[in-house]
């Protein structure tokens, strides 16, 4: 018998472990929330609390991303686009991060400037991208962040903008490498961009594929992430 046949398929092992880790983390987060609710008001805040909230979201986002990447790898990440109310979608993304936003004392706002109240995309997939970007933006933001949705030609553009120091110049210059998965040494941010770009590209209309873009500036002057959906 050859060695290959004896060994485990490591990516499957990781995927099923990540699945369990995610369940575990969910239970932990929910228990933590309940426990917090029982504490007196003054013990509920504090910077340790902020760290916990942030790291919970960060961990969760990474696990979701890891599972997504695994499914992309074995060609089993289905896309099921449908019409969704944009306001509902954006509000839900912010609501999910509410604790972190409160602890970091960040003012999070949103603006929707589209003709139709509906967008056409895979809610689950786009939500996983936005959640990761938001976690980052909250971490690097000074005081404010803004989610905006607008139309550019036929495309829907979802942007996340913050007032922090912005992306490192090197990252902006090399974004194509991350997107193509060429630079694999870049850690979680690079991997996040790769994942986001793959999700964007799963959205296709009449030969046009979705894409992502990072820059500095925007209305708030910090990091600006843009997701284009055809």
């Amino acid at each position: 018998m050859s060695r290959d046949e004896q060994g485990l398929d490591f990516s499957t092992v990781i995927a099923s472990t990540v699945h369990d880790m995610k369940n575990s983390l969910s239970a932990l987060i929910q228990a933590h929330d309940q426990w917090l609710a029982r504490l007196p008001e003054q013990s509920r805040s504090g910077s340790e609390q902020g760290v916990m909230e942030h790291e919970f979201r960060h961990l969760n986002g990474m696990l979701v991303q890891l599972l997504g990447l695994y499914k992309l790898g074995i060609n089993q990440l289905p896309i099921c686009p449908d019409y969704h109310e944009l306001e509902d979608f954006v509000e839900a993304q912010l609501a999910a991060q509410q604790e972190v936003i409160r602890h970091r004392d960040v003012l999070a706002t949103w603006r929707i400037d589209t003709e139709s109240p509906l967008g056409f995309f895979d809610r689950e997939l786009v939500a996983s991208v936005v959640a990761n970007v938001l976690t980052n933006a909250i971490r690097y933001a000074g005081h404010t962040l803004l989610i905006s949705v607008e139309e550019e030609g036929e495309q829907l553009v979802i942007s996340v903008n913050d007032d922090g120091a912005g992306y490192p110049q090197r990252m902006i210059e090399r974004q194509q490498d991350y997107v193509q998965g060429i630079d694999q040494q870049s850690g979680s941010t690079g991997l996040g961009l790769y994942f986001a770009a793959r999700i964007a590209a799963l959205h296709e209309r009449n030969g046009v594929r979705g894409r992502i873009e990072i820059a500095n500036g925007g209305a708030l002057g910090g990091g600006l992430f843009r997701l284009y959906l055809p």
Partner: protein
Amino acid sequence: MLQYGQKSFLIVDDFTDFRTSTRSMLRELGVRDVDTADSGEQALRMCAQKRYDFILQDFHLGDGKKNGQQVLEDLLLDKLISHECVFIMVTAESSQSIVLSAIEHEPDAYLTKPFNRLGLAQRLEKLVQRKTLLKPILQALDRGRPAEVLAACAELCKQDPRFAPLCLRYRADALRDLNRFDDLEKFLTNILASRPQPWVYAALGSLMHKRGQYEQAQGVYEQALKAFPIMPGLYDGLAEVLVAKGDNKRAQHMLEEAVRLSPLAVRRQAALGKLALDNEDYEGASKAYRHAVSQGQSSRYKSAESNLGLVQALMNKNAGNGLDARTRVEINTVLSEVAKENTEDQGLQVRARLMKAASLQQAGDAETAAKLTEQAMQRLDKMDQFFSVDAALTVARQLKELGQESAGTSILKGCVETYGDDPKVMQSVAKVTDDPSVLGAVTEAVDLNRQGVRSYQGGQLNEALEMFRKALSLQPKNISIALNTAQALLRIGGESPSESLMQECRNCLNRVAGIPASDNRFDRYRKLHVRVFGA
């Protein structure tokens, strides 16, 4: 914030902690009426007792239990919830794998764990807004009036055209239910030209299939799979078309693909088992039927056909080699389940016994096999229900193998009498016998029936009726001929049919009262039955 004080909520989850934490979130939102259930089965019982405004349903409720998607299907098909009820599917990881299996019945929203109070409140509020917007449509759905659904959709689209996309699916379903197939085709084709979605392809493919346009249907599904290669429902549709075209090998391949993507689907596993059995892939057939049987335990789509299919596949797999102890145990288990759970079904009782006899014979116990065959034949004599074609052929073949050739032949004769107008059935019968008294029995009656149909379509009703009557006198238990005769009689009788005419109708229908519910003419039979017997 919305007022939830008067609303009733049901939380379904197998984890106590989760039920408690969700309940306390709801309480903080002002909800007073919260019930909980720890399994889908319990949730169904509770929904039968009480109308809930909101259901928070966990998807994964433990192995061997109904999952959230099955609960949703049961709730909708058994009309235990109103379309106005907000149904939220709560999932541990992303909902992707569930979306796969939910092409027919979708929840109103997915909510991924972990969620917080604000996240829950936000979803609830938006969903209530949407349900309010769609209220006239949802109420028409509850009343089961597709024409009113269309009218309500048109009204909403006029009021606020920006929300028109939310009506697409309701409109498509209503057009289908109203049999407005040309409109439906145009409607679906238009959607595909701008924003293709898996359900649109599936609806168009199934429309083409229903109309007998197999080539076009195949084209639709193949195009769909290029855009959405990971949607098992589309493979199912393509497989059905391929079966209709007679390409069973490729159909099996499609279902294997679908099962690989989404193995939890009783009907898909059963369909795969049947195809594999037809294609003489007994290993594949046993595997698929075994899944269908075990998953069937918690499903509304549980079927004794899968148990019988599994036994057949196991026997064929070991043909010429007897049966080992483990296989015999498996056969005993699945067959006794059929006998125990279908005590009222004479046909299944006979078939389970014969199947058991056949397996005993293969295992080398000819004596018990003969006794069981004897028992089965006694039940067969008293049976007034018709076998389906497949069942009749299997029973006939087994009787012959068990040394009861003449009983087998009489089953085949009965099958030919009931179904012989269908050339496909005659081809199948010809595969198991070359007895001219079986194969030649129907020719004249079938000819007469065909002429009758032609006259009927030409409007010569009395001439048609004469043909049907003659045909029926030759083959009194033929389903098509009996239904045709009844229909011609009713058409001639008009508004106030005479008593003698009604009596003749009743006789026609009584002769074919054994029609199996799986027969594709069963609906037509039921409708005529309602007109003639009033129920």
